[in-house]
């Protein structure tokens, strides 16, 4: 597709598809701007790139030069970054087209994309429900067929949870696999850019391009980009652990049925399946909701109305300028997390909360090491405890909302790679199954996912 008129036609088709999905409120980029940018990008795209012509939407907390980066927040409304994320630069160098910015919970804080200053994103198959979050816009756009892949970001499951709820694939790489340069920081020891795709292969191709060493991020490992595995004939030789703590007695029966079916298929593919235990799993969500707000309260201190985005003015002095800008610019969930984070770090509470959470985090990571040291290659679990829930259902109860991350936060706390893929439907709503892998062994995780994806009846009732 090196003919310029063909490139332009393709860019127009991409823009048309994204704009057609407008009812989802998944893309924050205005249609006119999207069309103009895509036409420009198509003409400049690298013809020899491995993703040449592939449209990839980008979550609004990842910096781009083409479009504004608001993080779904009023406090960064209209903010244009003077630099772009390494992941975005690599996509462009590979010939991909940046197909707009996707809606998200403000600064990635949320599990439903209802906490966006720009309105909630709608679930692609049931408008009364949420697409999950915080990368709900990316998941909804992929599920609606508007783009084959999109970038999201994860702090506690924000790629895998919406992938599960929308019926697409979501990959969270090992901490340090993908550069965080240009990803707006929320919880720096947990954050990773991840990929949502309509298939394992689409997501994996994008992950391979954005991965690899980057001198601009000191937490990015000095490793080559991820090499994609081939699709395996069978899973002979794989040992897959089923952690019993992820299958509590009160697990949604539909989710249990879908997982049981997937586990049977993994056995039929030749994998050895055995039950394992990760004893500190029950403490992962409370641990996460101490560590993440603590880091957020520090990272978000920079939004003060002096340097970025809009300023909510009329202040007599600089301190009231900070307070007014932050008070009016942040939404309710971000305000709550800043307050909780400040509280757990404050004198007198640090030991009981933050220090204790750091110890718990070590124990959670140790659980995984023990299992993997005993010959288990991968773990398989549900991604989410339920399918997509109704909009507004959990808004007034933050703890209920936090519990929708119960199966995903462990990978972020332990820095491990994880992947969600569709494994069935419950009353028409998609549900995902999750592979958790060993650090930097994404290739093994992808092999298992390729194999399961080929045989699982993902669009059939479980």
């Amino acid at each position: 597709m090196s003919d310029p008129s063909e490139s332009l036609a393709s860019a127009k088709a991409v823009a048309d598809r994204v704009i057609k999905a407008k009812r989802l409120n998944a893309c924050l980029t205005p249609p006119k701007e999207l069309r103009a940018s895509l036409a420009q990008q198509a003409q400049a795209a690298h013809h020899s790139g491995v993703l040449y012509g592939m449209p990839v939407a980008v979550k609004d907390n990842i910096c781009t030069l083409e479009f504004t980066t608001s993080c779904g927040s009023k406090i960064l409304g209209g903010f244009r970054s003077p630099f772009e994320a390494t992941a975005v630069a690599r996509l462009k160098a590979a010939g991909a087209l940046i197909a707009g910015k996707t809606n998200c919970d403000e600064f990635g804080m949320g599990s439903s994309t209802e906490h966006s200053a720009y309105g909630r994103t709608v679930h692609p198959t049931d408008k009364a429900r949420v697409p999950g979050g915080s990368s709900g816009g990316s998941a909804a756009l992929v599920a609606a067929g508007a783009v084959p892949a999109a970038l999201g970001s994860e702090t506690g499951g924000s790629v895998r949870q919406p992938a599960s709820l929308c019926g697409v694939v979501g990959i969270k790489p090992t901490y340090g696999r993908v550069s965080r340069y240009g990803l707006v920081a929320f919880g720096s020891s947990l954050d990773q850019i991840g990929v949502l795709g309509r298939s394992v292969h689409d997501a994996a191709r994008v992950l391979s391009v954005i991965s690899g060493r980057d001198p601009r991020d000191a937490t990015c490992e000095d490793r080559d980009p991820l090499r994609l595995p081939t699709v395996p004939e069978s899973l002979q030789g794989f040992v897959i652990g089923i952690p019993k703590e992820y299958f509590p007695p009160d697990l949604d029966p539909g989710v249990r049925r879908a997982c049981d079916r997937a586990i049977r298929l993994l056995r039929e593919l030749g994998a050895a399946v055995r039950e394992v235990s990760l004893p500190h799993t029950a403490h992962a969500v409370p641990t996460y909701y101490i560590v993440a707000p603590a880091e957020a309260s520090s990272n978000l201190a920079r939004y003060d109305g002096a340097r970025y985005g809009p300023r909510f003015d009329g202040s007599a002095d600089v301190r009231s300028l900070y307070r007014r800008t932050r008070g009016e610019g942040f939404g309710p969930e971000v305000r709550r997390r800043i307050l909780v984070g400040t509280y757990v770090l404050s004198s007198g509470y640090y030991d009981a909360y933050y220090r204790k959470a750091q110890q718990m985090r070590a124990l959670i990571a140790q659980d995984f090491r023990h299992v993997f040291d005993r010959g288990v290659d991968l773990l398989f679990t549900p991604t989410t405890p339920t399918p997509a829930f109704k909009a507004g259902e959990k808004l007034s109860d933050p703890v209920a909302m936090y519990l929708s991350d119960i199966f995903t936060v462990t990978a972020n706390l332990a820095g491990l790679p994880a992947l969600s893929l569709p494994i069935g439907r419950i009353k028409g709503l998609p549900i995902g199954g999750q592979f958790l892998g060993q650090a930097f062994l994404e290739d093994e995780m992808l092999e298992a996912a390729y194999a399961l994806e080929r045989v699982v009846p993902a669009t059939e009732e479980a």
Partner: protein
Amino acid sequence: MSVTRDEVLKIAQLAELEVDDAMLPALAEQMSSILAYVAQINSVPASESARPFIPGPDAVRFRPDEVKPAPLAFGPAVFAPAFQDGFFLVPKLGQFEDGEAEG
């Protein structure tokens, strides 16, 4: 764990966050419920010997100590709310609430 209205105000002050008086009761209730929920980790006898876990490289790599121009597509004048002669503009530093002048 119960957080009072005054504690929310004190924390909000530490966080440089203006909080509407009308929102204080709801915030105190939500913070109490979140903190009570996360405090359950104190029921686990985490050993003091558990080494803190931080993912990522064991050591931060050094880069050559060279002065390089910031690779920005445009300068802060474009994205700052108010900018002049290389400086971010803010209202004059005033007296803090406790009467201490900023140094």
